């Protein structure tokens, strides 16, 4: 057991910090400071800078731009990136479809898609969820019927995050409606979103933002060579894709930055610019959150340290659950720090501080964290079943 980083890892950390804070322009990083999601063009610009430096897709195979880093180094890379407010490489590209194509795609698919995916020349969207499925992904109803060299795809996807920017979409479709188990008839298909018959409709969220979309496929003709791997194996690839990330499950550094910013804001958020850090109840809330975050970070580090030995650490299931709860608690804190200004929905009225004006929409938006990507109820089911054997 040893607390400190090895000299090598400490140097790696310094190098990452140096790169992110000096090589990524300030105007790209600063938008995040006030708590809003990074805008589309910042995400693209940041990923291209990272990719040029070989820092966009470190988890991929080396021949496609990956780095032979240890899990701890990947963790450090991601946490330093987040802490510097650099927009994270688009997860649909870097963490989802990229690794799947690299692992299961044909050589042709790899050459066609991986470089453009790493460089965010293609903006990928995810077409998994369907309107009535919720957490029950395998009940999907979008069909792909083989017709010569094509599939004809018909159906509807929803919760397609940032789908309004999508160039391509990776989808789960039902190719065999008669498969003995419903997981078996599913395939993974890559679809050009400019194809005739594809319609994208943005869904307005409760904070007034547009982040997710519905995507309709009306007899969309898709070349069969856009199939990933084998027909009927889509469920396997999807599980690989969703279980791929051991590192970064909980956005520790993002929460840490948000909490540090909140503390800084609190120092002048009192009447007449006085400090709210004179209020012992507010101080205790922040101190308590710092400690919860510390526990989360250390648990993430334990999971990372253990991944070194090749087996996933059982505590990894804790990270999503605790990570979202901590993240949400910080947004609640910021709403309360904002005081009367929390009535705002982030408008540019000018006289209210930006962080305060954005506090409520951010809080409302972050309620999604415990729902999307495997709800906290699903996480508890996994812990009870997989770890406790209940």
């Amino acid at each position, binding site marked *: 057991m040893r607390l400190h980083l090895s000299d090598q890892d400490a140097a790696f950390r310094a190098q990452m910090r140096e790169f992110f804070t000096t090589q990524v322009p300030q105007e790209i990083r600063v938008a995040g400071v006030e708590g809003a999601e990074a805008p589309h063009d910042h995400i693209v610009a940041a990923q291209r800078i990272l990719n040029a430096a070989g820092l966009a897709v470190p988890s991929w195979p080396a021949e496609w731009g990956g780095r032979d880093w240890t899990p701890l180094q990947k963790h450090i890379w991601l946490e330093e990136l987040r802490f510097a407010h650099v927009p994270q490489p688009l997860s649909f590209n870097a963490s989802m479809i990229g690794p799947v194509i690299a692992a299961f795609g044909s050589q042709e698919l790899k050459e066609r898609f991986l470089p453009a995916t790493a460089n965010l020349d293609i903006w990928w969207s995810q077409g998994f969820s369907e309107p009535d499925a919720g957490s029950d992904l395998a009940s999907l109803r979008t069909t792909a019927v083989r017709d010569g060299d094509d599939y004809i795809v018909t159906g509807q996807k929803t919760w397609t995050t940032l789908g309004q920017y999508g160039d391509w979409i990776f989808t789960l479709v039902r190719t065999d409606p008669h498969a003995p188990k419903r997981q078996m008839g599913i395939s993974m298909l890559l679809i050009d979103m400019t194809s005739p018959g594809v319609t994208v409709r943005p869904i307005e969220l409760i904070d007034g933002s547009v982040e*997710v979309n519905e995507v309709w496929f009306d007899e969309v003709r898709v070349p069969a060579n856009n199939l990933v791997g084998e027909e009927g194996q889509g469920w396997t690839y999807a599980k690989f894709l969703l279980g791929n990330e051991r590192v970064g499950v909980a956005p520790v550094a993002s929460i840490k930055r948000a909490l540090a910013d909140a503390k800084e804001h609190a120092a002048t*958020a009192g009447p*007449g610019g006085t400090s709210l850090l004179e209020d012992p109840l507010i101080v205790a809330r922040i101190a308590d959150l710092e400690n919860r975050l510390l526990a989360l970070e250390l648990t993430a580090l334990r999971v990372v340290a253990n991944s070194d030995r090749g087996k996933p650490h059982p505590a990894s299931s804790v990270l999503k659950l605790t990570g979202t709860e901590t993240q949400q608690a910080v947004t609640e804190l910021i709403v309360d720090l904002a005081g009367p*200004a929390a*009535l705002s929905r982030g408008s540019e009225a000018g006289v209210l501080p930006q962080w305060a004006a954005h506090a409520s929409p951010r809080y409302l938006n972050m*309620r999604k964290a415990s729902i999307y990507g495997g*709800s906290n109820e699903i996480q508890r089911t996994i812990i009870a079943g997989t770890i406790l054997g209940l």
Partner: protein
Amino acid sequence: MDFELDSEQSALREAVRDLLNDAYPSTEERRAAQADEPGFSEKAWTQLAEMGVLGLPFGEDVGGMEAGPIEVGLVAEELGRVIAPEPFVEAVVLAGGLVDAVGTDAQRGELLPGLCEGASVFAFAHAEPGSRWSPQASTVRAERTGDGWALTGVKSPVVVGARADVLVVSAVTDAGTELFVVRGEDAGDMVAGSRESFVTADSGRAATITFEATPAQLLGEAGVDRTDDIALALANAQIASCREAVGAMERALWITVDYLKTRKQFGVTLSTFQALKFRAADMYVQLELARSVALWATLVLDAGAAGGARDILDAASRASLQVATSARHIGQEAVQLHGGIAMTAEYSAGHYLARMLVLTHGFGDATHHLGRLSASLSDHEWIDPLTYGAVSA
């Protein structure tokens, strides 16, 4: 001690409920009402006026109904049930209440009839950038100009501040904090200064109002510090706001229960999952606790004449602490138990969460009120809720 409505009060509740159910049968109508300025339905506002609701707390001499906190509270609760965007609490209870409490008879007679009739919308311009629920003004100043006054400074956020044609404004004077009235030429303009409307977290409207030597009329007698009047009016509005939140919580719970009963996942309805049922039960517990304290605070107001302001401010903080705690719990659980659909503006659950956030924040959040109650902890050995508002035994 009695928690039941009498028959007149019940009739009022039914009438208001019918009106609001007609106005807002679904989320769609509410979204439509909030899509454009002023962020609520002028038609529903007029209907409420016609029913006498906008004149409830005022005397018959100014066109009011001469009713009390109980009637005000039940209206607020009904508004909360459908999360109606009409600014009843802000315009009638708070701004109107201040005019009624502080204004001269001439001012009451001049201003309040318009409010009661629905012709006029009031707003209380009090919060200032950086202020935190203080009953005092701090940066907006009033200066004498000949025989009148002029205001300078920024108020924000002011709920329905752009739409209002009568602004009640708090400002610093030599006497402390005094109150002023600024009337728009029409609904859109003031004589001097500017108003900028913005969308609020619950899709309503508030404004940033900049006064630039804006002519204003002093409310009430000159030279009287109005801090206590403002504190009492805020407590009044705060209690009504708690009742509005209780109405919203109740609906949010039942919307969630209905969803659990009908929504299928993994081949069965969600209501078959025990963990979800238990969480719905906990929501119910939080609702009933909040309802109890909010009703009680209404009764303390109702009994208030004898006991004085201190009991009312205390009861308002007690109600706010419980209601804020319950509302956050219920609002968040309503969204979580629905799942993704509740994140969308097309569905109602998220709007309930957003509305409850605003209702439990406009007059101080839970931490604020816990701090207030902490400061007075050593004043009493224990709490006897039945002796509030009475002459101390």
